[in-house]
């Protein structure tokens, strides 16, 4: 025995080396500009979503800083009313549509989910790449509008009649509408990719019962996107038709109705809050377990809460419309529903606290941000409970109290977990550790700055300062609080600069991370950092809810997938037993070309309805190019003679 073991080990090493080189050849990621445009691997596209949306976070932040500078003193003349309107609209639209969803849902989802499933790539990688380019197209349209003095100026939800043809001539509202179409088609595409990946690409053994909370949340969010986003596309589409071809959906003089727009918008708008928050909660559940060095407390209640949030999130939209004079019965119903949604969020909160309480907490950088999240989001949640009550809501409607509330919820629920998640998966993405000292500077500067800016706004709101005013008179006595709020922006800016410096420095000079620097249980930590283009040399199998912690020393791996074509394993949605093998379509330039054709059509339709018939053939040609079946060069066509029913 003693003499044969090294021989077997050597044989195994030689085999692994050869297999790795074959897989690297098969799963190559093309290089150069053309290759960059065609690369469909989820790690590349996921990182692009993150970097692009982070750039828009910074741009949205610049707009916010401009608004704060304008409000630093009464009767300030830095920004005029027209520019101010454009800037607050652009700020909200950028942060929601170009940053929050693309970062929290698409960015983290596309990068982490396939790795966490133990898959070699995301399902429908070309659709995923196409979705990225459409997102960029929408972003360029919106910002191109601002730079040509055609920035939308009707608020991020573009209520009619203000955004209708009568009160908003020109193309500002059209640009907003089409930006929505771009970004929602993108989010819907990614939702289809992620839901399919989670349901069908999970490693054998990762049954539904053993699925990590992060995957449950991504699955729930994907379904929320699928059901909610069509509503905003309908709303913005009808708005565009009213403006472009003279339909009357929102024109009361011709049997239309302005509240119809609000219903359609908020049927999307409130689930959107959870589409932004649940990814943050998913990151927190992952971190809390990892840095408390124990399994998450209450896995099942958390999963039930997440799914419940997905359902209840669709039953609360009318609370955005309490001030529109709805029947009292519906106000009461939606108050109750809005209060009810506190329950699942509360359950998650207490499960996190119980995990920490019973664990051995390691105060590493991601955990610091998790604690920041607890504090900030709790305050946002509490002011949310206040606002669910109709009398309070009516009193503070459209004041800075609301601005304070939703920044606590959104920055608390998305930005703090985002930084936690970026620091957490930074070693996986780059192979290097982030700098802890710089990270702590970043945290404290941002945390202090954030609270200075937004806690102050609660009082401004209670003192009667309405949102979206470009200036105010000295005798309102709002100057002191506004100055304090603007000071906070300086702290936040400094914090963000420290973060950027940390990322740029650590990705080259940071300590080597190794496969699993935090000792976490997710499958993504079971491969090298950064992962190879085929993600796993041998696709893993799973033994329990915490995949790596529950793995036996000789945990089985999947063999028998071909290494000369991009073969992936498809498993059963419930029990994750192997069902059949699929083939990853590989890199392609067609998604990029299709996105160009679709973008040209969307942009053209801002100006003329004829863009649709002219653009459609281009779209059709590029889609046929994308989907037309091709042979496998240089590998031979695989034999496909058997299938299951």
């Amino acid at each position, binding site marked *: 025995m003693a003499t044969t073991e090294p021989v077997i080990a050597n044989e195994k090493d030689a085999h692994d080396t050869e297999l790795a080189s074959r897989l690297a050849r098969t799963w190559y990621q093309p290089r150069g500009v053309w290759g960059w445009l065609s690369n469909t691997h989820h790690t590349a596209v996921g990182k692009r979503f993150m970097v692009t949306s982070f750039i828009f976070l910074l741009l949205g932040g610049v707009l916010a800083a401009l608004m704060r500078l304008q409000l630093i003193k009464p009767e300030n003349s830095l920004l005029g009313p027209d520019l101010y309107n454009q800037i607050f609209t652009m700020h909200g639209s950028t942060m929601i549509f170009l940053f929050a969803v693309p970062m929290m849902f698409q960015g983290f989802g596309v990068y982490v989910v396939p790795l966490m499933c133990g898959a070699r790539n995301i399902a429908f990688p070309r659709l995923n790449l196409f979705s990225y380019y459409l997102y960029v197209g929408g972003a360029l349209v919106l910002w191109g509008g601002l730079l040509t003095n055609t920035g939308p100026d009707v608020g991020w939800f573009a209520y009619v009649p203000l955004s209708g043809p009568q009160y908003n001539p020109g193309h500002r509202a059209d640009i907003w509408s089409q930006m929505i179409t771009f970004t929602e088609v993108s989010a819907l595409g990614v939702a289809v990719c992620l839901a399919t990946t989670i349901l069908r690409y999970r490693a054998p053994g990762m049954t539904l019962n053993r699925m990590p909370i992060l995957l449950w949340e991504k699955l729930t969010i994907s379904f929320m996107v699928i059901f909610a986003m069509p509503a905003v596309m309908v709303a913005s589409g009808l708005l565009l038709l009213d403006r472009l071809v003279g339909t009357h959906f929102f024109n009361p003089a011709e*049997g239309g109705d302005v509240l119809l727009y609000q219903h359609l918008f908020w049927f999307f708008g409130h689930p959107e809050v959870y589409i932004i928050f649940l990814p943050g909660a998913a990151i927190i559940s992952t971190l809390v377990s990892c840095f408390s060095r124990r399994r998450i407390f209450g896995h099942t209640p958390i999963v039930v809460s997440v799914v419940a949030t997905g359902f209840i999130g669709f039953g609360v939209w009318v609370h955005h419309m309490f001030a529109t004079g709805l029947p009292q019965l519906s106000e009461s119903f939606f108050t109750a529903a809005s209060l009810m949604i506190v329950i699942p969020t509360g359950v998650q909160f207490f499960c996190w606290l119980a995990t920490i309480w019973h664990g051995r907490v390691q105060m590493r950088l991601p955990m610091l941000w998790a604690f920041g999240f607890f504090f900030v989001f709790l305050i946002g949640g509490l002011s949310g409970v206040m606002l669910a009550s109709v009398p309070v809501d009516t009193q503070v409607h459209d004041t800075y109290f609301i601005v304070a509330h939703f920044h606590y919820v959104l920055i608390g629920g998305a930005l703090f977990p985002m930084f936690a998640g970026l620091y957490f998966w930074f070693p996986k993405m780059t192979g290097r550790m982030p700098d802890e000292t710089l990270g702590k500077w970043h945290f404290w500067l941002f945390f202090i700055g954030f609270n200075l800016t937004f806690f102050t706004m609660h009082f401004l709101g209670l003192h009667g300062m309405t949102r979206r005013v470009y200036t105010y008179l000295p005798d309102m006595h709002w100057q002191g609080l506004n100055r304090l709020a603007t000071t906070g922006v300086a702290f936040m800016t400094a914090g963000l600069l420290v973060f950027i410096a940390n990322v740029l420095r650590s990705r080259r000079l940071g300590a080597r991370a190794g496969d699993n620097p935090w000792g976490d249980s997710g499958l993504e930590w079971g491969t090298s950092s950064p992962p190879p283009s085929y993600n796993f040399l041998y696709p893993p199998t799973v033994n329990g809810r915490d995949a790596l912690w529950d793995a036996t020393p000789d945990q089985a791996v999947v063999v028998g997938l071909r290494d000369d074509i991009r073969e992936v394993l498809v498993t059963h949605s419930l029990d994750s037993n*192997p069902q059949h093998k699929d083939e990853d379509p590989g890199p392609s330039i067609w998604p990029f070309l299709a996105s160009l054709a679709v973008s040209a059509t969307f942009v053209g339709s801002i100006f003329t309805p004829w863009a649709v018939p002219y653009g459609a053939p281009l779209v059709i040609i590029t889609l046929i190019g994308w989907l037309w079946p091709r042979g496998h060069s240089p590998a031979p066509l695989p034999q496909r003679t058997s299938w*299951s029913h």
Partner: protein
Amino acid sequence: MESLREPIRPLTLDVSDVPSVAFGPSNTTWLANVFYMTIEGMMFALMFASYFYLRTRVQQWPPGHLAPDLRYGVANAVVFILSVIPARWVQKRAPSGDRAAIRIGLMVLAAFALLATAIRVFEFTTLNCRWSDDAYSSTLWVLIGMHAGHLATELIETLVLLAVAFTDKMEGTRLADAAINSDYWYFVVVTGLLNFIFIYGLPRVI
């Protein structure tokens, strides 16, 4: 190039014998198709909801118009119902890899789709309103226009599959695609019939 032969390991899950093509719900494209039908179904549902919501804003429905003429609406409803036969035929024959049957099935289905599209063009001329008349007319045009978009998409998809069916690429997973195409056609039929009931039927009944 042959795949590497695996050395002996203590525990492995060998999937070499797992089939490489699946039909029906275990196919990933089938799932994506269901998701896209859900997305587009939501858009139809919200447009129907808007239609009924706008109904509550006026006294009379249709407000100051005659309901659309039945002629082309009924013709299209009949075409939709009959078209289910070739769609189902393709779906049944696809798993057996019977290319000749699939070619015929797709050809008949494409003919139905083409016929429905042609009738739709005439249908627009007998709606008894223009989209810019009032909110009712706008809703009507958008509902029928949206459905026309789906119809055109499905026609093109069927034609492309038909073209593929005349090459040797109509094998394995493409056969599954041909079967999935029928599912999408059912979606077009169901939404078309709902459109017919709500737009042509309800104003005459209530």
